[in-house]
Every structure is written in structure tokens, then in C-alpha cells.
């Protein structure tokens, strides 16, 4: 009963405009002081322990930073060019290219809103120029952007792994096939709509364009190789992969693409020949400007923007971990587990309940904070019912994707309305047809575990956390 009061307090505070982090933290404190025997000092200890005891969370600021360099660095522009060169000539070509670009950017970035910002701010304007409606463009990007947390790397997966102590590496691998599948489903939907509605298609610019565009994008896309190759090739842990990715992204943005930092006003090569002619000068400038680039205003700015995002996200997660601690101490997970198991819930019914909880929770909460609270509640039951923890994780991620494009709290909605310059409710309506696709996808993910588990099991052996 007291626990119901606790959740009511969290939601009540949220709704009157208290920041999510404070709603979670204050409710937990008041609950402990009123019903528990813990001291305020122990709450403060738990706040610090959020960082000290969850090494895996460290990957989050690093992936945010890598994404920050990639966004300022104009990598998105090159990815979009490459993607238009590949699929722009199909019916609905620019929209399909937008999805394809979101998928590629998702493989560089751990966050969905960042993917929408990077790709959407260029592609939506481009789509309108060639005759798409604003609503259609916004709906496509808003949905495709959610792949940012499904295609690895993914901040939400890191949070899940930290909350229930499964391997981040397994989670990342598990996202690959679902990510490709979801992207494909969106593209096919657009293709069909394009055929029916006779949407514009671009022109085929030839293989030369594909080659030059892919060369241009390759330095950025090589980040995928660093992250996945580095983790599965035995060079570093997922956290270290994130740190290396941000150092690499900084280097590419500053010295290869020269979109930021001390060399941003220098001439850029327009062809392969020019590139080779300029190479010696490039190398010389890299040596000369190497150390100064660390202290350049652009570098500081990218670090600061990533730091600011880290602060707001992790302050929510840290306070959610306080709430998690309270729930554990009150043995709430066991109580719920026993209730569900004695009610005779099987895996099918259980997964429906999990989906409903997450879909409702996702209407109010920021994904990572919600995950920190819900994952420990349902994880023990899932293990008891023989559900693969990685499969459960992917189900949660897909739910979070849906939460991001449904009101009232939907980070992708806010960001899309920003980049598309249209009111949020307009974006909500625009996103609706594609939201239906994601729902079908959620049902597939929920009841076909193979989609999530085949790749991690093939690469890393069978899951070791079992009943």
C-alpha cells in the first residue's frame, strides 16, 4: 500500500512540473523517512553509488560525446549524400534515403533525439523542396530516428545492462537484426505509400556519385567498425569503445573533415585527385594544429554540449537508482514476482503485462529513468519464467522507441517539432501511420525471441544468465 503511495507521489510531482529527477529523488526520500529506517546520509551515499557502483554507465557520456562531434562535424551531411546516391532514385526515394541515413547515423550515435536532429534538420528541408508535405517528412524522420536506440551503440541498452547486470556487448549485438528489420519495414511502408500516392522520386546519379559519396562518408562510418570491431575483436570493453569512438570522432571532425576546430576555414578537396594533391599539406597541418585543437573553442563547445546532456540524463538515472534502492529494500520486486507467479502467469501473459507497463510509463517518463525502475522489477520474474534476459532487454528498448514518439513526453516529438518547425500535435498526427508499423514490429520482437537472440548467441555463445 505504501508503495502505491510512493508511485502516486512520483507521478503527482511529475505532473505539476517538478523535474523528473527531483520527483524520483524526493518521493524516495520522503518514503524512506516516513516508512523506513534509512537515514538521509544513506540516500546521499546511494546517489554517489549510482556512479561508483555502475561502471557500465560510463559508456553514456562517451557515446553522447562521439555523437556531439559527429553532429558538429557534418558527418550527417555526408551520410545523407551517400544514402541519396544509393536509394534516392526509388519511388519515395528521398524518404527512403532519410530512413537509410537514420539507420547509418544510428550506428554512430547512441541516442534517438540526436539522430533526429542530425538527419532531420537536413533531410526534412530537402524533402519539402522536392515536393513532399511537411507532415510526411516529419513523420518519417521522427520514426526512423527512434532506431538510434535500437541499432547499436545505444544509451538505453547501456542503462538496461547496468540496471540488471547483463553484458553490454551482448545487448549491442542483439540490436543489430531488429534494427535492420525495423528500418526495412519502414522503407517498405514508404515504398508502398509512394507507389499508391505517386510520391516524387529522385534521379539516378550513377555509380561515380555513389563512390565519391561513400568515400566522403567512409571516415565517419568507419566509427561503426571501431565500435563493433573493437568490442568483438577483443581490443576494448564497450565503455572503452565509447571513449575511443569519441576521440576518433573528434579527430575526424577536426582533421579529416575539417568542419570544426582550427582548420575549418581551410579549403576542402572536391575530388579524389584534389584529395591526393592536398594530402601532404593535410598531414603537415594535422601535426602543427594537433595540440592547439584540444583547446579550440569548437572542441570546448562540443565537450560542453555533450556534458550538459550527460548531466540532465544521468541526474535522472541517479535519482531513479535511489528509487530502485528503496524498492529493493522494501522487497517490492519479490512481492510482485510472487504475486505474478502465483497468479499463474506464463511467459506470454507476462510479456503482455511488461509491454503495457512500459507503454503507459513511456507516456510520462524519460526512457532511461523508466528503464532503471522497471527493469529490476520485472527481471527476476522473466528469469524465473525462462525468458532470455537479452530478449527482454530488446523488448524494453522497442517499447522505449514507441514511448519516444507518443505524447505527452516524447523526446523525438519535441525534437522533430523543433527541426521541422511545426507544432507538436502536428508531428504526433504525422507520425501515426509509421507508429502502426512500430507496433507490429513490437509484437514480432515480443513473440519471436530468435530475432533478438540469434546474433549474440552465435557470436558470444549461449546466454549464461538463466533460470
Amino acid at each position, binding site marked *: 500500500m505504501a508503495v502505491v503511495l510512493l508511485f502516486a507521489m512520483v507521478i503527482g*510531482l*511529475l*505532473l*505539476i*512540473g*517538478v*523535474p*523528473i*529527477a*527531483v*520527483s524520483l529523488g*524526493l518521493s524516495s*526520500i520522503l518514503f524512506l*523517512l516516513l516508512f523506513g529506517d534509512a*537515514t*538521509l*546520509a544513506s540516500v*546521499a*551515499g546511494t*546517489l*554517489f553509488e*549510482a*556512479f561508483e557502483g555502475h*561502471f557500465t554507465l*560510463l559508456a553514456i*557520456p*562517451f557515446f553522447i*560525446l562521439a555523437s*556531439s562531434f559527429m553532429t*558538429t562535424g557534418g558527418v550527417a551531411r555526408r551520410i545523407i549524400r551517400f544514402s541519396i546516391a544509393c536509394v534516392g532514385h526509388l519511388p519515395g526515394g528521398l524518404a527512403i534515403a532519410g530512413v537509410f541515413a537514420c539507420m547509418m547515423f544510428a550506428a554512430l550515435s547512441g541516442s534517438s533525439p540526436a539522430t533526429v*536532429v542530425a538527419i532531420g534538420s537536413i533531410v526534412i528541408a530537402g524533402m519539402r523542396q522536392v515536393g513532399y508535405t511537411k507532415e510526411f517528412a516529419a513523420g518519417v524522420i521522427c520514426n526512423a530516428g527512434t532506431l538510434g536506440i535500437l541499432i547499436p551503440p545505444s544509451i538505453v541498452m547501456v542503462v538496461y545492462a547496468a540496471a540488471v547486470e547483463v553484458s553490454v556487448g551482448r545487448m549491442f549485438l542483439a540490436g543489430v537484426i531488429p534494427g535492420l528489420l525495423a528500418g526495412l519495414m519502414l522503407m517498405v511502408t514508404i515504398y508502398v505509400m509512394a507507389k499508391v500516392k505517386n510520391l516524387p522520386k529522385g534521379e539516378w546519379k550513377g555509380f561515380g556519385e555513389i563512390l565519391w559519396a561513400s568515400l566522403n562518408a567512409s571516415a565517419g562510418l568507419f566509427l561503426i567498425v571501431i565500435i563493433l570491431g573493437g568490442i568483438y575483436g577483443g*581490443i*576494448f570493453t564497450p*565503455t*572503452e569503445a565509447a*571513449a*575511443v569512438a569519441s*576521440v576518433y570522432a573528434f579527430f575526424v571532425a577536426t582533421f579529416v573533415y575539417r*568542419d*570544426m576546430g582550427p582548420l575549418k576555414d581551410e579549403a576542402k578537396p572536391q575530388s579524389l585527385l584534389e584529395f591526393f594533391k592536398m594530402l601532404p599539406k593535410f598531414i603537415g597541418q594535422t601535426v602543427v594544429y594537433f595540440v592547439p585543437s584540444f583547446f579550440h573553442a569548437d572542441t*570546448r*563547445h562540443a*565537450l*560542453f554540449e*555533450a*556534458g*550538459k546532456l*550527460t*548531466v*540532465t540524463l544521468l*541526474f*535522472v538515472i*541517479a535519482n531513479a537508482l535511489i528509487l530502485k534502492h528503496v524498492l529493493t529494500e522494501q522487497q517490492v520486486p519479490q512481492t510482485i514476482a510472487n504475486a505474478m507467479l502465483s497468479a499463474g502467469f506464463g511467459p506470454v501473459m507476462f510479456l503482455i503485462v511488461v509491454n503495457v507497463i512500459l507503454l503507459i510509463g513511456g507516456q510520462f517518463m524519460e526512457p532511461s529513468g523508466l528503464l532503471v525502475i522497471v527493469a529490476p522489477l520485472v527481471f527476476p520474474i522473466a528469469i524465473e519464467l525462462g525468458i532470455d534476459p537479452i530478449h527482454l532487454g530488446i523488448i524494453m528498448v522497442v517499447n522505449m522507441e514507441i514511448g519516444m514518439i507518443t505524447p*505527452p513526453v516524447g523526446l523525438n516529438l519535441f*525534437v522533430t*517539432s*523543433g*527541426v521541422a*518547425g511545426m507544432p*507538436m500535435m502536428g508531428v504526433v498526427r504525422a507520425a501515426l501511420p509509421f507508429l502502426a508499423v512500430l507496433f507490429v514490429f513490437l509484437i514480432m520482437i515480443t513473440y519471436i525471441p530468435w530475432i533478438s537472440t540469434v546474433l549474440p548467441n552465435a557470436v558470444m555463445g549461449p546466454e549464461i544468465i538463466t533460470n
Partner: protein
Amino acid sequence: MQTKHSFVDRIEETLIAFLLGSMTLITFANVIARFGFNSNILWALEATVFLFAWLVLLGASYAVKKHSHLGVDAILNMVSPATARVLGLIAAAACLVFSLLMLKGAYDYWAVFADLPPTSGRWFPTGFDMKARSQSFYEVQDVPMIGAFAFLEDLINYGDAYEKLPKVVPYIVLPISMLLLVYRFAQAAVAVLKGETDRLVASHEVEDEIAEVRALQGEHD
């Protein structure tokens, strides 16, 4: 209210950038040490974790100042300005209560590591608890003792040498950050009281979002 980009803003922003930059470089250096030189920086992981905690805890008060904490403003947008103001005041009071309770907790938690008495009392400090055991001996796991902190050995550790950094050093961020948080929430509460704003959370106005996007794309001062 503050001017757009004050001197204090600059300091806070540089500190945020510096902490994140150091975390990245230390972790990167450890990878190079292991992969390139078959060596190690055993304290790298722990030091990075401490910097991470410092970044988020110190940054939390900056985020209050800049109204960038995540929250739900759907209801605030629906109700009348007068109601929004009342809700804003209640929310500000809740934030102040939170930060004040956390400040007491943070001081109490840190004090024993600093050989200081924690406060007594469950909700409010009612005095000092002189019977609490000092934990000034308590060191971190891996980060070695730094010469600059040698004065602590005589000051709080009764002359005993530290091999690793004493916990009093990384944990000091708790009382400092919570004090800053109290200060920033108090400022925010005053702003709501004066009618300068009606909310503490990030407003999701379209203009703000566009500014945010531009900032991310590198336009800055």
C-alpha cells in the same frame, strides 16, 4: 535574472567541458596502455568514475540555472497562467525541500570521512552527533595518494600515512554540489515568485528546440 552569458556561466561551462574531456582522455590512455604497450593504468577506471560523478553532481545545479532539467510541462501548458504560477510555486518548494534534505544527507555522509561530526536528527539537523565513528582512514580502491593531499594525514588521519586517496576527497563533491543545488533552486523559486517564469523544467517550445538544434550544430558564441 542573469545576463545571457555571465562570467560564472563561463566557469561552469568550462568545468563541465574539462571534466568530460579528462574522462575521455584517461579512458583512451588506458586503452592505449593496454593494447599498445601491454601495460595498464589500474586507477583509470576508478578515477574516471569519480570524474563522472563530479560532472553530473556539479552540473545538476548548472542545469537548474539553465532550465534544462527534463520534466513534463503538458499540464502547465494547459492551465491558466494563474494556476500555472501556483503549480510552479509548489514545484519550486518541492525542489527546495529535496535539495535541503539532500544537503543534510550529503554533509552527514561526507563528514565521517573527514573526521567531522555528522548532524543529528532525522529530518532536520538538531545538533552534532559526537559519538559517530570517524572513517577518515577509509581509502578509495585504486587511485593512489596524491602529494598535494599529504596535509590530510596530519589533519584528519592522526598522522597515519595514506597509500590510496582517502575517500574524503572524491566524496566532498556531495556537500558542495548539494549546496549549489539549494542555491540554484532558491534562485529559481524567487524567479517563480516574482512571476519571471512559471516552470523549472525544460520548456519544449519550438523556438527553444530550434535554438538547441543550432547549438548542437556548432553555432555558438
